[in-house]
């Protein structure tokens, strides 16, 4: 090894031994004897590497990268004999200060490497930072030698996923979580048995790329508590896991801890999807801090108006210029890195419609970034999920450029199911589309039901409990006089706003939650459950809890004791979905060659009422050959009644020798509301109708 001549220095600066580096890979890479640093900027005129002892406020040394080391627009240099663990590095860039032309170089700033793979400075969550630190988010070097043994991404078919959306800190931060390291990746790892018991096979983590919880932190005008950038939808470094989420963050071992979490999830059959925020960065607009991109190459990294101001399609001050080729390459490098180095199974792209805009903000018919991601050979088996809208008014649910690869958060599913559940008229035709995997959105283009990520609740908006406990949002504690957060919640409080002693209201809420869970898990498409909805988690009517590090966000695990019935119901519904391939169709029935059908019924069998006044529908899912020629596969039936009174639903006839069995009936209370799959209760042999309670759903299985 050490016989290669390029393992030896050729230059030196103040005793530091150097040699010309390699331009790729970008970032800092450990090489024999030293570290290869590489960074690019189109308009910088010089670049200086700034090295710190870990945590020090003044640099250890500043090494101007010799002009002769520059290749094109890339500065690259090997520095020998660095103690990998005790060094932090940044850059100073010289270049024009000319905001009108898009240049904001400032050599007084020390800049974070966009490719930094570990970032110090916020090692312990919530620890007040030194506001005078000249380099607040500090790039560190990491070992990329994690011992994965036989692990690799699971490649579970999308149609088989049951996604659970969670916040890495909220999941186990509450004292009731009872874990050794609350609010961390290690805490999440300790709760894997719970996830398995629930039956979900995929967790989707809200942002875990390094962010600054102190970005725009402020005292709460109502409570006095500190309000944080708690959710973390504001990236500081795209290649680094959030150190403050790691129990070992103070030791700088967040990379190992996170990889170990992924490995343990995989060992338990659970995939991991990351919620990634490529639409903007933590630098905000022209009044925000210069942390990295702004000082490295403002004109490249951001979408700028002709006057040099920041376009704000994200609603967060700036817009990452994703279809500039350099930025596009960074996004691709980043996702490849997480897929290959962290074994991540998929990505959910926040405000993904932005990724289809050109550098001047116009939507493109064939966006190169989305195409690159769809065809990339390293990301080839990763799930790609778009939040197919942005804050600039581009709404692409059903029309997101998909290249046969992209799935979407189906916002129409959320809205239509909510409206049906609360009893709105005229919802039956839309409901039927949503139950079938939204063929109106994803059928004509052959994207299939798995293009639809079905959800009724997500981190944005009400929890499932609050959806049926509040008519209105209650965001006063967010400090904006209740002006923030969406107003189109399609929620219904079931008779009393918020907490109540009224047992009838309480029972109705439980039933409504079960109705929602049953619909979600019986629908074609890919179900996503919000953390805690299986236990009745509440945010006390707050539908925008982005800033709260308290029990508005934390999962209170004692809810599982109070709402055992809900958890039991959710668990059995998930198990039912896993039991029946009919519920996990890869293609839209009726459009594809699949030999199975959705057959619509109503209170009258074979005769659904599609009229505007209707609040009922039923459907049967059946293989065409069921009951014939030795095919004994089950037939599934679901009756949905959003009307306030009980209605008898006439049951369709079954094949000879088949008999209906009751799996779920949300009109009954636990434990009579649901049975273990395979242990359903047989109906009377000649029972030809079923009384479905008001605002209730029933699921039957027909089998021999």
């Amino acid at each position, binding site marked *: 090894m050490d016989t290669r001549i390029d393992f030896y220095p050729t230059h030196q600066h103040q005793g530091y031994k150097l040699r010309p580096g390699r331009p790729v890979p970008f970032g800092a890479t450990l090489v024999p004897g030293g570290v290869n640093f590489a960074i690019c900027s189109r308009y910088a005129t010089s670049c200086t590497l700034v090295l710190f002892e870990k945590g020090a406020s003044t640099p250890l040394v500043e090494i101007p990268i010799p002009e002769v080391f520059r290749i094109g627009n890339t500065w690259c240099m090997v520095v020998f004999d660095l103690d990998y663990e005790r060094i932090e590095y940044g850059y100073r860039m010289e270049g024009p200060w000319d905001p009108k032309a898009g240049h904001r170089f400032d050599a007084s700033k020390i800049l974070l490497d966009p490719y930094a793979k570990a970032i110090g400075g916020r090692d312990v969550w919530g620890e007040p930072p030194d506001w005078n630190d000249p380099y607040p988010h500090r790039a560190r070097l990491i*070992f990329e030698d*994690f011992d994965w043994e036989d692990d690799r991404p699971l490649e579970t078919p999308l149609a088989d996923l049951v996604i659970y959306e969670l916040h890495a800190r909220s999941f186990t931060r509450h004292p009731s979580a009872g874990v050794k390291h609350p609010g961390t*990746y290690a805490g999440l*790892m300790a709760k894997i048995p719970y996830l398995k018991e629930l039956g979900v096979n995929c967790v989707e983590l809200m942002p875990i790329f390094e962010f600054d919880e102190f970005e725009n932190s402020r005292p709460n005008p109502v409570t006095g508590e500190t309000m944080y950038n708690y959710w973390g939808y504001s990236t500081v470094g795209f290649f680094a896991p959030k150190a403050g989420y790691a129990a070992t963050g103070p030791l700088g071992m967040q990379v*190992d801890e996170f990889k170990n979490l992924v490995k343990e999830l995989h060992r338990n059959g659970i995939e991991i999807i990351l919620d990634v925020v490529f639409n903007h960065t933590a630098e905000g607009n022209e009044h925000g801090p210069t942390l990295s991109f702004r000082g490295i190459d403002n004109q490249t990294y951001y979408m700028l108006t002709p006057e040099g101001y920041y376009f704000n399609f994200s609603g967060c001050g700036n817009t990452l210029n994703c279809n500039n080729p350099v930025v596009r390459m960074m996004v691709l490098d980043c996702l490849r890195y997480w897929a290959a180095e962290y074994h991540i199974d998929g990505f959910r792209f926040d405000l993904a419609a932005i990724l289809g805009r050109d550098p001047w903000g116009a939507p493109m018919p064939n966006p190169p970034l989305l195409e690159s991601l769809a065809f990339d050979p390293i990301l080839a088996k990763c799930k790609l999920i778009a939040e197919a809208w942005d804050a600039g008014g581009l709404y692409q649910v059903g029309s997101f450029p998909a290249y046969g690869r992209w799935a979407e958060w189906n916002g129409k599913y959320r809205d239509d199911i909510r409206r049906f559940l609360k009893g709105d008229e005229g919802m039956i035709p839309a409901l039927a589309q949503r139950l079938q995997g939204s063929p109106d959105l994803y059928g004509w283009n052959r994207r299939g039901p798995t293009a639809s990520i079905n959800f009724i609740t997500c981190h944005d908006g009400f929890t499932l409990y609050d959806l049926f406990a509040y008519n209105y949002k209650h965001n006063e504690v967010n400090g904006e006089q209740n002006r923030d957060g969406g107003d189109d919640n399609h929620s219904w409080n079931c008779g009393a706003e918020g907490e109540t002693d009224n047992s009838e209201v309480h029972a109705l809420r439980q039933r409504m939650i079960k109705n929602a869970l049953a619909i979600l898990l019986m629908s074609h498409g890919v179900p996503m459950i919000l953390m805690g909805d299986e236990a009745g988690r509440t945010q006390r009517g707050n539908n925008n809890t982005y800033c709260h590090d308290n029990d508005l966000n934390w999962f209170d695990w004692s809810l599982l004791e109070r709402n055992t019935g809900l958890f039991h119901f959710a668990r059995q519904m998930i198990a039912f979905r896993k039991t029946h391939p009919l519920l996990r169709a890869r293609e839209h029935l009726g459009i594809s060659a699949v030999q199975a059908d959705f057959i619509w019924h109503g209170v009258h069998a074979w005769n659904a009422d599609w009229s505007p006044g209707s609040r009922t529908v039923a459907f049967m899912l059946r293989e065409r050959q069921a009951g014939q020629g030795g095919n004994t596969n089950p037939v599934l039936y679901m009756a949905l009644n959003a009307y306030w009174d009980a209605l008898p639903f006439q049951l369709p006839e079954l094949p000879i020798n088949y008999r209906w069995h009751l799996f779920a009936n949300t009109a009954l209370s636990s434990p009579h509301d649901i049975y273990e799959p395979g242990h359903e209760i047989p109906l009377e042999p000649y029972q030809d109708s079923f009384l479905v309670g008001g605002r209730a759903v029933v699921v039957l299985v027909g089998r021999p």
Partner: protein
Amino acid sequence: MAIQVEVSTRNEITVVTVAGEIDGGSAPGLQSQVLPLLQQNGALVLDLAGVTYMSSAGLRVLLLLYRQAVARNGRVALAGVAETIKDTMAVTGFLKFFTVAGTVDQALTTLQQA
């Protein structure tokens, strides 16, 4: 950071006793001292009771030893690992590669039974 390393043999098993802080500065030295002690089909006990701090680089030396031992069809046991270090190892995935014992005697017993 300086560390002390002592090597002895008990019941034909090599016992390496380490004291001090294992970090990026001391890890390479430890590695060069311990690696040559691994023998074909051999067993080795690392007594870490005197180790007060272990950085990421230190954990990597342990894993390297383990991998080298496996390659030689040998075994490595750790003894006397401090609770905080053990916890870090558990959270980051290093721990489960090793046979871990409270004391050197227990480690010897375990290795001899295996």
